[in-house]
Each structure stands twice: as structure tokens, then as C-alpha cells.
């Protein structure tokens, strides 16, 4: 007993704010119980990820109510909360260990090339609803926060392989270790498949992919108050891309488009604990991405429709000048060309070449980001918590094809989120984010949340928030030029003489007016979160008004920059986890959303009804079975409906743990996924083995 008394005296509380346990961390940057968070939150932890049987990270997001996660463009996934346009995931922020994966150049999140493997992920927190008050512009409809495994919690090295039909060939190796004052981990992975397998209009779909990732982290506890976290990694990818319809109209692909991507990142974070109620965190990171899509085309003569030297006029200086003189109207340009003497001379010069005109081109973009953030978290008494901070960010984008040069954007930001227990069962969350950058000027995004704990385990919330998505650098500064890089002879040797300029560019060019406004969202929700015996339930009703949307096409062939788009969502969502027994978990999600749009393309990914069901059954200490069902009714008039089944066997051989698994994914209908060309002919299946030493 004396020893017991002594131990009471000796044990200090070990819950500085940085280490405080929390069911959710993302909505307000504060460690909060779910019942006090100013948002609806979905948490997907490692157990759920494993039970889902997912091969790729984006797939597990189907377990989030209201979330669309599908491969829209062959091998390129689109993940969107309350989806609108099919190919855009530009209205949602994705964080990977606090680093924004939202790329400023083309306003996108590249799920393929994210430098992390699904096995490295500890948990994913999805804040459903605008969260610009905590993360700034582009945390528009939701925030996905991917948190990798802490090296201090890993005790084994892992080697895993899996293979299946349709070219599924995956490998993964990871190592972890501990030092006197910290721990480290590193992983290397590769995944490959051949995409959709059913041919479309008589030809194979070109959508195979191969991706390699590297991800490492080192945690160093300097002393009881200071922790240093270093992370670094990268990825490289090779994606076969589908042929562009616009290009197909002009000629014939000699080499299918292939997208090569590279990514690297490094980050350092210093956490300092002043005392149990005050903590400072300084984070700095840099990331670099480069994507190049090469393709080679032989062009038709626009006057005859035949392959020949006349195809070169599409890259001639004279046609470019006519295009600009005719207000970028392609029809008017060709009408004017028929009577233009310079064009006639150019056409005649080309005919003398007497060879088909073929050219290689590339869509290229390089993006760099340097980010420095200081965040201070303070607990004031029992009832008030405040997180505040400053952020400085420098984005640089270089692209010959999209920008014809390099553009820099520097943003300055300040944020604060306050959580106050007004009366014991009532919590007020107030948050705001001020930012200023070169493209969009100055903005402020507010949020108000009120949580009422009606009884232990039961709470209601009201949240009102506003957010914005700033135009990306391409939208604001586009100056497109598709250059003829590898010309066929004799055009390569006499480019200037034959085409009128060197280097030669495709005649169509697009220029952004630079006057686009940010897209805006205004949202409110009423929600309930409750715990019963073995059952957890979250439901919400919401209304969202998205205005000033850049809904029209903004690609090198079609370019209509305006803020005329509008989308209104209203609906309800629910997620339920039920443990009927020790060895069973049933998880259900559902969303029913009414969407109104003023441009049809904004509704392509807006499913009125969507649902997921996951059942995991631990049959014995060694055997596990899980099954999932996914429904989206509909995407672009096509219903997505699929069931997955996974069987797992874990056993030990000496000190080594082996895990065998088999997964089958079966589509319940033959409808295409969003677009006609995305079809599966047969079920996907694969077998895997993981060895943990």
C-alpha cells in the first residue's frame, strides 16, 4: 500500500495536448471527442481498412457516406464528397500527415501518385462539410486527413506480395526500428494493374498503370518537452492514358498517351510542450511533382480529311494568327483560312514536303510547394481551448503546355479555432481562417458549431460554415501551347521553313482572363451522434449552396472561363457501426441527396442514393471473413453496385506471422462506371501473402 501511495505521487499526468487521446483531430485542429466536434466525422482505422480488402487507398473512402470514389478516367480515380463534375476532385482538401495533397497547378488531388501505401496508413479522418475555417481555401466540401502509422507503434518488418487477374501485381516491404530516443519506419511499395478490361468500340482501353512509392518517418524525442518528426518519400508512376476524342478528330495516334509522374517530399515538424495545457508545433515541408503525358499523332489535312503534309497547317504560324484574329473561334478560323493568301502559301509550301505530318507532343506540369506553419494550442481553464496559427506558403508551377512559362503564388494565412464549454453540456466552436494570395486577394472563411450533449453518449450539433475554392494557377493564368516536339522528317529539319515558326505550336491556344472569382460554398447541418450498447450512430441533415462555380470546360480544346455555375445539395446521411457480438462488426452508411445544377456536367457524380455495408466476422483466432457492398444510384445515369468478399488466414511459424488472403470484387450489374468506356468484363480477384518478422 505504501508503494501504491508512492506511485500516486510519482506518476505525472501524461497528457499534453499533443498526446491527448481523441476520437477526432481534424475538424477544428483540436483533439476533440466526436460529440464535441463542429462537423460530421467519419473515422476509418486500420482494422476497417484491412477488413475492406481494398488494394488502393482511394477505395476505402466508399465507406464514407456521401463520398464518391471511382475510377472515372480509366486508371485515374476521382474522389469527391457530394460529387459534382466527374473528373474533378478539386473541391475537397486531402491531407497526408498534415501536408496538403491538393495541387495548386491544376487544382487536383492525384490519388494514384500519393507517396504512401495503404498499408502505411493508421487511420483516415474525413470531416464531412466545409472546413476552410480550419484549413483555408479548398477545404471546400470536405477534408480527408490521412494519418500514417507512427513508427513508435510498429514492432515488425513486413514483406507482402499479391497477384491476381487483370495484371494485378503488387509488392510491399517495410522496416521499422527504435533508437534510444525515438523510432523510424520506411516502406517501399509497387502496385500495378491493367485497369478496365472490356474493350470499347472495338479497341482495348489503354488504362494500365504501375506505381512505386517510398515513405519514411523518423521520430526523435529530444527530451520530455520536445519532439522532432522528419518525413520524406516520393513516388513514380507510369499511367497509360486514353486517347482524347478532340485529338482523334484531328488525326490518328501513333503512340498512345502515357503519363509519367514523379513526386518527392520532405517535412520536418517540431513539437514543443510548454506544459500540460500549452503546446507549440512548427511544421515545414516541401514537395515537388512532375507529370508529363507524351503522345504522338499523325494529323489529317483539315482541307481534304486525308493524312498528308497538309496536316502541318494545324501547327502553322498562319493558322495560329487567323485563330487569334477570329476571337479563338475554330469554325470562323477555318472559314477565314479559305480566303487567306498567307494560309494558302503555307498550305502550298507544306504540300512540297510530300510526307505525312506527324508530331510528338507532351502535356507537362511541374509543381513545387514550400509551406511553413506555426500552430499554438492552448487550454485555458477547464472550459476553453484555442488553437491558432500562422502559415506561409509558396507555390510555383511551370508548364510549357498549360502556362507557357512559370508562375509563382505566395499566400499568407492566419487561423484560429476556439472551443468553449458554455454550459456543461453545451460546447461552442468558433473558427475562422484569413488568407491573402496573389491570385484571389483576401478572404475569410468562418464556421460556427454548437454541440449539445443531451445525455452521456448522446449529442446534437448545429454547424454553419462558409468556404471557398480559389481558382488554380491554370484557371487564373492559362496560356496553353501544345508544342510539336518530335516532328517527322522532313518537318523536323526544316520546321521554320515549312511551318513558319520554330518551335511550332498547335494553332489553338487558350488564355485565361485572370479575372475569375473563387468558388463559394455556404453550408449548414443538423446532426446527432449517439452510442448505444454495441452500436454507434451518426446522422445529419444538411443544405449546401455552391455558387460562382467554374463549371464550364477549361481544357486546351474547350475553354469557357466564367463563374456561372451553381449547385445546391440538400439531403441526409447516416453511418452506423454495430457490434452484435465480439467477433462481428457491421458497418452501414447511407446518403440520400437532392442535387440541383444549372449545368448538366456538374451533376454527373451526384448520386441521389448511395450506400455501403461492411460485415467483418472473425471466425476464429486465425480465420477472418469480411464482405462489403457498395451502391451509387447513379453516376452519369449509370448505377454502380458491387460486392466484395475477403477471406484471411493468420498463423505463426516460429516467430514469424504469416497472413494469407484472397479477395474477390464482383460487380452486380454490367453498367459502365460513370462513362461508357469504363467497363469490367469479369470479376477482380487476387491472392496475397504477408510475412511479418
Amino acid at each position: 500500500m505504501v508503494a501504491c501511495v508512492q506511485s500516486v505521487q510519482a506518476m505525472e499526468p501524461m497528457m499534453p495536448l499533443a498526446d491527448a487521446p481523441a476520437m477526432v483531430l481534424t475538424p477544428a485542429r483540436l483533439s476533440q471527442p466526436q460529440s464535441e466536434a463542429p462537423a460530421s466525422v467519419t473515422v476509418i482505422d486500420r482494422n476497417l481498412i484491412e477488413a475492406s480488402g481494398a488494394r488502393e487507398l482511394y477505395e476505402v473512402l466508399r465507406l464514407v457516406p456521401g463520398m464518391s470514389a471511382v475510377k472515372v478516367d480509366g486508371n485515374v480515380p476521382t474522389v469527391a464528397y457530394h460529387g459534382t463534375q466527374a473528373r474533378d476532385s478539386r473541391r475537397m482538401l486531402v491531407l497526408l500527415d498534415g501536408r496538403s495533397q491538393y495541387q495548386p497547378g491544376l487544382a487536383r488531388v492525384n490519388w494514384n501518385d500519393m507517396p504512401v501505401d495503404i498499408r502505411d496508413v493508421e487511420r483516415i479522418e474525413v470531416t464531412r462539410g466545409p472546413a476552410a475555417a480550419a484549413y483555408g481555401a479548398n477545404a471546400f466540401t470536405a477534408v480527408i486527413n490521412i494519418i500514417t502509422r507512427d513508427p513508435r507503434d510498429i514492432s515488425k518488418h513486413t514483406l507482402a506480395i499479391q497477384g491476381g487477374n487483370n495484371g494485378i501485381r503488387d509488392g510491399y516491404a517495410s522496416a521499422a526500428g527504435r533508437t534510444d530516443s525515438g523510432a523510424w519506419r520506411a516502406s517501399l511499395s509497387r502496385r500495378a494493374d491493367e485497369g478496365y478490361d472490356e474493350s470499347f468500340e472495338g479497341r482495348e482501353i489503354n488504362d494500365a498503370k504501375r506505381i512505386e512509392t517510398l515513405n519514411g518517418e523518423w521520430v526523435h524525442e529530444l527530451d520530455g518537452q520536445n519532439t522532432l518528426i522528419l518525413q520524406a518519400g516520393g513516388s513514380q508512376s507510369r499511367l497509360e492514358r486514353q486517347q482524347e476524342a478532340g485529338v482523334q478528330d484531328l488525326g490518328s495516334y501513333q503512340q498512345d498517351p502515357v503519363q509519367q509522374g514523379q513526386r518527392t517530399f520532405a517535412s520536418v515538424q517540431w513539437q514543443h510542450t510548454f506544459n500540460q495545457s500549452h503546446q507549440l508545433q512548427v511544421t515545414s515541408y516541401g514537395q515537388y511533382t512532375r507529370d508529363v503525358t507524351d503522345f504522338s499523332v499523325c494529323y489529317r489535312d483539315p482541307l481534304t480529311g486525308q493524312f498528308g503534309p497538309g496536316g502541318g497547317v494545324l501547327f502553322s504560324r498562319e493558322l495560329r494568327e487567323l485563330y487569334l484574329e477570329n476571337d479563338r473561334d475554330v469554325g470562323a478560323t477555318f472559314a477565314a483560312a479559305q480566303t487567306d493568301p498567307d494560309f494558302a502559301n503555307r498550305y502550298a509550301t507544306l504540300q512540297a514536303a510530300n510526307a505525312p505530318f506527324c508530331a510528338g507532343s507532351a502535356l507537362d506540369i511541374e509543381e513545387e510547394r514550400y509551406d511553413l506553419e506555426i500552430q499554438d494550442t492552448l487550454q485555458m481553464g477547464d472550459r476553453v481551448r484555442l488553437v491558432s496559427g500562422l502559415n506561409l506558403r509558396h507555390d510555383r508551377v511551370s508548364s510549357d503546355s498549360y502556362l507557357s512559362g512559370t508562375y509563382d503564388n505566395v499566400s499568407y494565412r492566419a487561423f484560429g479555432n476556439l472551443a468553449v464549454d458554455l454550459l456543461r453540456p453545451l460546447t461552442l466552436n468558433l473558427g475562422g481562417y484569413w488568407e491573402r494570395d496573389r491570385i484571389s486577394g483576401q478572404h475569410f472563411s468562418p464556421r460556427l458549431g454548437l454541440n449539445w450533449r443531451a445525455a452521456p453518449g448522446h449529442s446534437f450539433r448545429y454547424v454553419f460554415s462558409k468556404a471557398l475554392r480559389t481558382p488554380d494557377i491554370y484557371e487564373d493564368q492559362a496560356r496553353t501551347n501544345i508544342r510539336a516536339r518530335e516532328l517527322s522528317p522532313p518537318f523536323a529539319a526544316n520546321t521554320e521553313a515549312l511551318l513558319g515558326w520554330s518551335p511550332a505550336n498547335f494553332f489553338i491556344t487558350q488564355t485565361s482572363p485572370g479575372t475569375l472569382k473563387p468558388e463559394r460554398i455556404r453550408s449548414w447541418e443538423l446532426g446527432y451522434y449517439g452510442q448505444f450498447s454495441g452500436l454507434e450512430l451518426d446522422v445529419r441533415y444538411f443544405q449546401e449552396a455552391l455558387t460562382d462555380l467554374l463549371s464550364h470546360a477549361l481544357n486546351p480544346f474547350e475553354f469557357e472561363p466564367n463563374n456561372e455555375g451553381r449547385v445546391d445539395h440538400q439531403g441526409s446521411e447516416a453511418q452506423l457501426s454495430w457490434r452484435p457480438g465480439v467477433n462481428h462488426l457491421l458497418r452501414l452508411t447511407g446518403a440520400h441527396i437532392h442535387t440541383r445544377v444549372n449545368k448538366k456536367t456538374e451533376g454527373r457524380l451526384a448520386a441521389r442514393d448511395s450506400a455501403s455495408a461492411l460485415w467483418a466476422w472473425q471466425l476464429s483466432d486465425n480465420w477472418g471473413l469480411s464482405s462489403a457492398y457498395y451502391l451509387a444510384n447513379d453516376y452519369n445515369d449509370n448505377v454502380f453496385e458491387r460486392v466484395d468478399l475477403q477471406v484471411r488466414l493468420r498463423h505463426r511459424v516460429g516467430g514469424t506471422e504469416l497472413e494469407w488472403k484472397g479477395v474477390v470484387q464482383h460487380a452486380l450489374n454490367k453498367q459502365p462506371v460513370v462513362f461508357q468506356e469504363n467497363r469490367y468484363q469479369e470479376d477482380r480477384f487476387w491472392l496475397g501473402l504477408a510475412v511479418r518478422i
Partner: protein
Amino acid sequence: MNRQGRLILLVWLAWLAPSLCAQTLLPIHVLADEGPFRDSFIQALDAAAIPPLTRVADPQQAELLIAIGDRQFRRAQKLDKPLLGVYVSRSAVALAQRKRCQCQGIWAGVALHDQLAMLEVMMPLARRVGVIVGPESAWTPGMVQDYQGRLGLTLLPVSSVEVLGDRLRERLADFDALLLPVDGQLFGPDTAKLILLTSYRLRRPVFGPDQAYVQAGSVASLYASGADLVAETLVHLQFFHSSRRLRRSGFVHTPTIAVNEHVANSFDMVFHDIESLRDAMEASP
């Protein structure tokens, strides 16, 4: 259970009081390390009228020895007298009994099912609970394996502090919560940081083993407070006084609840106040 148990005990002692007053005094001797708890414990025994006691300075003149803690318990065995250990480890009592000592003990810690009852009330979502058990733990592997309740318990045998970290890293994520028994070797101040910070990072709450851990950051624990130990000691003394036999060893029947409200709130647990929790535990099957 706690409040009800105390009430029954008081009624029982009050009912016996008139007849007991007429009986002879029971000479006892208390062996305890110097400190505030010893003083408080002795003071409480001296103040107790039931059973009639007299505290003697010479252990040889005592009919019953009371030893507090393992060290004093081992020391008292050499005196070859009837011996009651208070807040002693199960293993120490078992070892002494194998040596055929005339002794029983009030074990350090609380009963497994009591801790689980509290966990069930506070975490209605929990189904899978990991229980770490070491050679010196208050609970044996058999106790965990014999559990027949609604929760699924997984026994995590840990032989020493050295392997505790690896065992946590390997298994903690499989559970909804972790339950720790009182164990002077495994769960002292040195390992609290490892256990609690690992549990925070993996979002798996820790229950137990005692008040000190709750203060450090585990969610909650039932524990044997000084008052609980005094009350339980009096029950043993009364039994010995009336029968001249030692009552069987066991945990305190009326443990005290400690809750770290901040941690409980962080994990969104069902907790309003201690009294409501106690009522809910009493109402639970």
C-alpha cells in the same frame, strides 16, 4: 455495488454490535512500513468498535497479525502466528500458503468482473478487451479465461517489462480497450508513459490498474482505497473474532471509483459523474 455493499456491511455490524460488546477483546498487532497510510490505518482500526480489538505492541502477545504490503507480509510469516495480509499480492499469499502458513490476505487490486462492469458502462461500444497479465498480477490467466460475460477478453501474457512495449505494439490495435490489473512489476511509474502514450496514439483507452494510473492518464479504475481496505479488514477481523478462523483471501468487496474526466471525455465515454456511474454499475447485470 459499492454503496450497497457498504450498507449491508454496516447493517450487519450494527446487528451484531450488542452481543459483540460483551465479548473479549481481540489482541492484534499491525506490521506496516512507517508512513501516513500506516498511521491512518491504525487510527481507523482503533476507532472501530466492532469487533472489539486491542492493539498490542508485542507481536507474540497478539492472536492475529495484520501485515500491510508484501514486504511486511513476508516478514510476519516468520512469527508463526495467524496472519492477515492487507494489500498483498495474490502471488505472495499463494506462495505463503504453499509453505503452509496460517495466513490469508486482502489482495492488492480489485476483482476482474468489477473493472469490467465499469468498462461496460462507460464504453457501451466496446466488445474486444485486451487484458495484460504478468506473473505478479492481481489476476491470473485462469480468471481471464473463465470470464463468461458479454465482452470478448483476450489474454495478453507479459512475462516482464522488457517485452511489454512489443506486446502493446503488436496487439493493442486489435482491441477496443485495454484492461490492466494491479501489478507492482509491470505497471509502475516507469511503464506508465509507454502504456498510456501508446494507447493515446492508437486511440485505445486504458482501464485500471489503480488510482495512480488514472491520475497519470488511464480512463478509470476501481481501486482499493484506504477506507475500503479498513472496511474489508474489519470484516476479516470480525470473522476471526467470532470463529477463530481466517476468512478466505479475496479482493475488497467495495472498491472506490476513480475517473479521469478529461480522458473519459476525450474518448466520448458515457460518464456524467461518479454517483451516476456507480448507479449504472449497480444496475448492470
